[in-house]
């Protein structure tokens, strides 16, 4: 911890000091831009390939004169099911998000506000779901969904994901930060349990609800393994499985592959920009709670 590097610029002339500061700032921006280019490289690469038209030897930077935006339309006309895949993903993601919000809110409310016997038991039942990875349940789940005739249906894609251990603990944690006195006072004033939840607790918990919503939507939209298993026909694919299938059918048509991929990426990128704060909070919370 010894003073190895002393801030030399303190002894310097004012103008030099300014110049060094300016240089430091420019250096920082240079590094930031460079890092951004590297991080965004795959996306820029995809965009560049999409705009180059049909070619078997694409270059890194498209020829400005030949840039072809119609490829995004072509992707839809070439793959008739693209609309359907996007619709499927939207239906499934919205339903799972709403379902997780509902089941998590109710369970988290019980765990945070009600006092009842055997509460630790229930707590561990919910905690235990975080310990069981989906790989160790996927085979029986697949067999069950098949035997119920739920393959190629919305319920097969939605129902297994309607409850989330992460969601329950995220909301419970937030509900605990809202003073319990508020609950007691409301009950004294004749407010029922459900009404307290609906008209007092939930409006106060909007940030946590937003976090769970963004997180649930994103992870459902990006699902791959499960939709791959429980959808057989092309029209029931979700976007993620769809573009992977599309890729293998249009293996040589680079611009269409990239255009379809970018179309599929767009909703989550928009969601990232709009809900970044919620998402970041969710991920850091999730990391803390496992």
């Amino acid at each position: 911890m010894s003073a190895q590097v002393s801030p030399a610029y303190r002894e310097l002339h004012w103008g030099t000091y300014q110049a060094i500061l300016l240089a430091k700032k420019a250096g920082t921006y240079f590094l930031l831009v460079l890092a951004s280019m590297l991080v965004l490289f795959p996306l820029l690469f995809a965009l560049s390939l999409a705009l180059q038209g049909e070619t078997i030897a694409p270059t890194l930077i498209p020829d400005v004169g030949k840039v072809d935006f119609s490829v995004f339309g072509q992707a839809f006309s070439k793959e008739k099911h693209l609309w359907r895949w996007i619709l499927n993903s939207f239906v499934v993601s919205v339903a799972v998000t709403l379902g997780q919000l509902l089941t998590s809110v109710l369970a988290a409310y019980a765990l945070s506000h009600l006092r009842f016997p055997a509460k630790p038991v229930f707590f561990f039942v919910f905690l235990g779901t975080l310990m069981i990875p989906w790989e160790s349940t996927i085979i029986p789940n697949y067999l069950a969904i098949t035997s119920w005739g739920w393959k190629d249906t919305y319920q097969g894609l939605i129902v297994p994901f309607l409850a989330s251990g992460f969601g329950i603990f995220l909301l419970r944690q937030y509900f605990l930060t809202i003073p319990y006195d508020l609950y007691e006072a409301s009950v004294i004033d004749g407010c029922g349990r459900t009404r307290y939840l609906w008209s007092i607790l939930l409006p106060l918990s909007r940030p946590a609800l937003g976090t769970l919503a963004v997180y649930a939507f994103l992870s459902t939209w990006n699902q791959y393994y499960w939709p791959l298993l429980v959808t057989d026909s092309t029209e029931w694919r979700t976007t993620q499985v769809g573009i992977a299938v599309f890729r293998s059918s249009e293996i040589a048509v680079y611009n269409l592959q990239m255009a379809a991929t970018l179309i599929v990426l767009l909703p989550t990128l928009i969601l990232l920009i709009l809900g970044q704060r919620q998402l970041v909070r969710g991920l850091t919370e999730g990391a803390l709670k496992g």
Partner: protein
Amino acid sequence: MSALDRPQNPATRFSAAVKTHGDASTEATLDRLGRPAQAGSRRLHRRWQDFGWALLYMSPALALFLTFTYVPFVRSILLSFYVTTSTGEPSRFNGGKYYARILNLDGSGQGEYLQSILTTVEFSLMVVPLSMITALALAVLATAKVKAIGIFRTIFTSSVAISVASAGVIWSLMYAPNVKVTKWLVEVLHLQPDNLLNNASTALAAVAFMTVWTSLGFNFIILLAGLQAIPQELYESGRLDGTTGWTAFRYVSLPLLTPTLMFLCIISTIQCFQAFTQFNVLIGNEGPDKATNVMVYALFTAFWKDNRYGFASALAVVLFVILLALTILQYRVLDRRVHYQ
């Protein structure tokens, strides 16, 4: 509202001992007036009533977890001891033979599943350190106090929003031999001019490199949060001692970030053990010379392609044990982190 609630209140089952069933307000008033005996029974009554409501509130989540997590989990363990039919019904008890097969204890000398576990470990060792170092560099960069830093933070976070499947499609083209960037890279690094993904010596590293990119956003978010949680006073007192730049990072940030780094290290390893999508999209089979046959892919092959449900379940249980060990380790680290702060 409470009048509306009452008819379907399952708690009334428990309230036989209490004759009057006043609404919440009178109940609370009586409590406050403090007639000891009655107040006590009221409180008990309320507890049972709460129990009924709690069960009702928790029932959707409990039913779902029972159906889609706990029952399948137990079935998975049971299935792993049976030879199964093509529809997944257990047909003949098999004891622990599948486990012996996986761990190469059956004397067959075929260590392909042990190899698969090793491949997974190798994959994690490629992904985790590189991803953590890159993400840490980005996080340090993103603490710079300059204008428009928010935009850069969003960019560094972006891979969180990009699904592994779409990333796989993009990267499969980045690795395609006729794309000029790849050609250049292959020449610079003196790699075989063949497709990187078709070559046993480069396939796993190629998938790992793509995984580093997809995991960057998440690791960045956690590390930035970790850096921001370090009290500014520490840097200020450090500055008085002459610690700036690299020394400040080395002697202030890094020690305080160690718990976060360790924790992230475990989480990333868990994610690597669960990796499947990138292998399915980029490679689509066991890889050249089974070089990319990671555990979840071996499980997928046994289950999906060969319909060997019993054997696949045994693989799933082995994977569960490994992940459980990592999870317990993670909670230990987390405990320490909480004490640390």
